[in-house]
């Protein structure tokens, strides 16, 4: 029997790990991820969740432990945030280079200094080149569903890459929402046990991660790129299959809302994408033809879908909860890069909003949309990156 629970996204993450029958968990506590590792501990110690739970001494060790466990052939899991993720950086590369299907929720939190525990995407965005697949979620149901989908995706022999499931600090991590948790037997049917093709096996001894000369290194990297391209095909397929099994779909690579006839499309990620939908409804009442495209998967970046969206619209307004210093918001950068060489490009305006956990509500998004539509009317973007609500 499926059941509806009302709980925080962090607790939902713990239930998803249990539902995925994860075999080894290695984790280190960091605010605001802590209620994930605490709830897992309760599930393990009450006997409800049969897994090896290793409380390691750092995030670098958490990822390294997952690498060892995944290489030894079992389904692995960890979760982190902010500084913990950045400390893992080296091991993130090792995990993807080793082609290990590790799944890791990341509670998106600001990087210091100064110390700030609130929402910001710079932590995971600065890991975008590590070879990890990245999902960004907009509600607690999507968090649960995406964790299950992620194992299905990354254990596919054509993929074999680790996956980050990103959820914003507090806005999701500590907010109670109703979530439907499907029947375990149905989940087991959707996600069968992990059967790796190769692992650390005394009967078939292989040396993993040994020296690779320039003669071979590029080919291994090319295979990662190929897997990323394949993931772009599989993610929507798996999302659809999940929807058929359990009733929820989340948009595949991009969740589009009223984009078909939109002159202006708002591009955002995570919960700002949810706010954008409300803004779209309000603005349409005022006669503005606006749509919203929530980028659910940032790696692999859905270039082709972005191009399709661009074909039938006049303008993109892109909202980033993060900045690549010296350039643009991350999503703005990637979107612009995707459209180069395309005919009839839309106008593009970038907006930096909500850094360090500052609220971005539908009202903020409406303001952004109105500013953008003014520029759309004059066919000129006056400022490429606008810092929203900045004290000047």
């Amino acid at each position: 029997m499926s059941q509806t629970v009302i709980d925080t996204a962090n607790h939902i993450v713990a239930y998803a790990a249990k539902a995925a029958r994860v075999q080894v968990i290695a984790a280190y506590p960091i605010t605001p991820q802590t209620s994930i590792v605490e709830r897992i501990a309760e599930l393990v110690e009450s006997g409800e969740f049969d897994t090896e739970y290793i409380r390691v001494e750092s995030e670098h060790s958490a990822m390294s432990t997952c690498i060892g466990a995944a290489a030894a052939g079992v389904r692995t899991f960890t979760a982190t945030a902010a500084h913990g993720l950045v400390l893992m950086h080296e091991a993130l590369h090792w995990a993807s280079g080793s082609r290990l299907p590790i799944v890791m929720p990341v509670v998106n939190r600001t990087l210091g200094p100064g110390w700030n525990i609130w929402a910001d995407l710079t932590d995971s965005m600065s890991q975008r080149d590590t070879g990890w697949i990245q999902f960004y979620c907009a509600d607690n149901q999507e968090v649960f569903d995406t964790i299950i989908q992620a194992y299905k995706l990354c254990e596919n022999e054509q993929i074999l890459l680790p996956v980050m499931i990103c959820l914003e600090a507090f806005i999701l991590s500590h907010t109670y929402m109703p979530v439907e948790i499907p029947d375990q037997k149905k989940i087991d049917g959707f996600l069968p046990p992990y059967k790796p093709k190769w692992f650390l096996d005394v009967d078939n001894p292989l040396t993993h991660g040994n020296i690779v000369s320039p003669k071979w290194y590029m080919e291994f990297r090319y295979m990662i790129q190929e897997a990323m391209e394949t993931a772009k095909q599989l993610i929507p397929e798996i999302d659809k299959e999940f929807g058929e099994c359990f009733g929820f779909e989340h948009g595949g690579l991009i969740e589009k809302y009223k984009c078909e006839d939109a002159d202006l499309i708002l591009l955002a990620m995570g919960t700002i994408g949810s706010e954008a939908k409300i803004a779209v409804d309000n603005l349409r009442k005022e006669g503005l033809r606006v749509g919203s495209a929530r980028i659910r998967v940032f790696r692999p970046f859905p270039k082709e879908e972005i191009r399709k969206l661009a074909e039938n619209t006049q303008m993109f307004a892109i909202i980033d909860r993060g900045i690549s210093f010296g350039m643009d918001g991350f999503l703005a950068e990637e979107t612009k890069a995707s459209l180069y060489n395309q005919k009839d490009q839309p106008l593009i305006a970038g907006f930096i909003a909500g850094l360090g956990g500052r609220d971005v509500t539908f009202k903020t998004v409406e303001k952004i949309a109105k500013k953008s539509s003014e520029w759309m009317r004059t066919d000129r973007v006056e400022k490429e990156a606008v810092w929203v609500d900045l004290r000047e």
Partner: protein
Amino acid sequence: MVSIKELSQEEYLLKGHIACAGCGLAISLRLLFKALGNKVILVVPACCSSVIPGSYPFTSFAVPVQNMLFEATGATASGVVAALRQRDVKDVTVVGWAGDGGTFDIGIQALSGAAERETDFIYVCYDNEAYGNTGVQRSGATPYGAWTTTTPTGKKERKKNMPFIMAAHRIPYVATACPSYPIDFINKLKKAKEIKGTKFIHLLVPCSTGWRYDTSKTVEMGRLAVQTGIWTLFEIEYSTFKLNPPSDRLIDKAKRKPVKEYLTLQGRFRNLTEGDIEKIQRWVDEDWERYRELASRPCV
């Protein structure tokens, strides 16, 4: 306890590896497999052992090996051990096999964490007293006075006491060894295999490239280290300290060779003054006073 005649003829470090001539590590790896056979999973961080098996698509290891980040041996081994438990594999020994830099310096945190979590594995630190793989730079294991490329006039500080740091974790088994005493090393590995929990073996491995001695003298260099008492063979088993042969016969200073005999054979100690040598001799004698005391009572 095995004798030399009972050792397996099987080799799991295959021919074709690219270790330096006279490499003490290559000898040590052969001994590791003589002791444990091939039901072993090795976790190897960045070190000479990740280089000498050769490059893809070849390897000279005939056991499964996970190469790993420099600082992560203890953590990675923890993951392998947990996965084997989940897969219900009971007859495989997990061995972390790391150099002194990967143990004393960058890897000490992950090792300490694994030991504190009572991870069931054997950790061998093969110690050639410098970052050998990168061209002989100083590590926390480099002894006082030794030349390295980053201490061109000799290191000014003493070596960490790693086995006692590990003993302070209250793990069930800590031992020192040296490939110049192969039966002692093999027996310690066999004993470690039978004990549950974290086992730490600190192996002094002479390195002709880094220590600057003739490549034919590796075994002799290890013997001199023990005979002079600069390296001591002992075990700390559940807090009980015990000297092993031949170190157990060297408590009396008169039985030990002067450290000078060991130091003057190595180019890395060329800059030592007579005063330095006297100082090192005094430190060694002080260590031995401590061993004498420890041999008669629990040490942790």
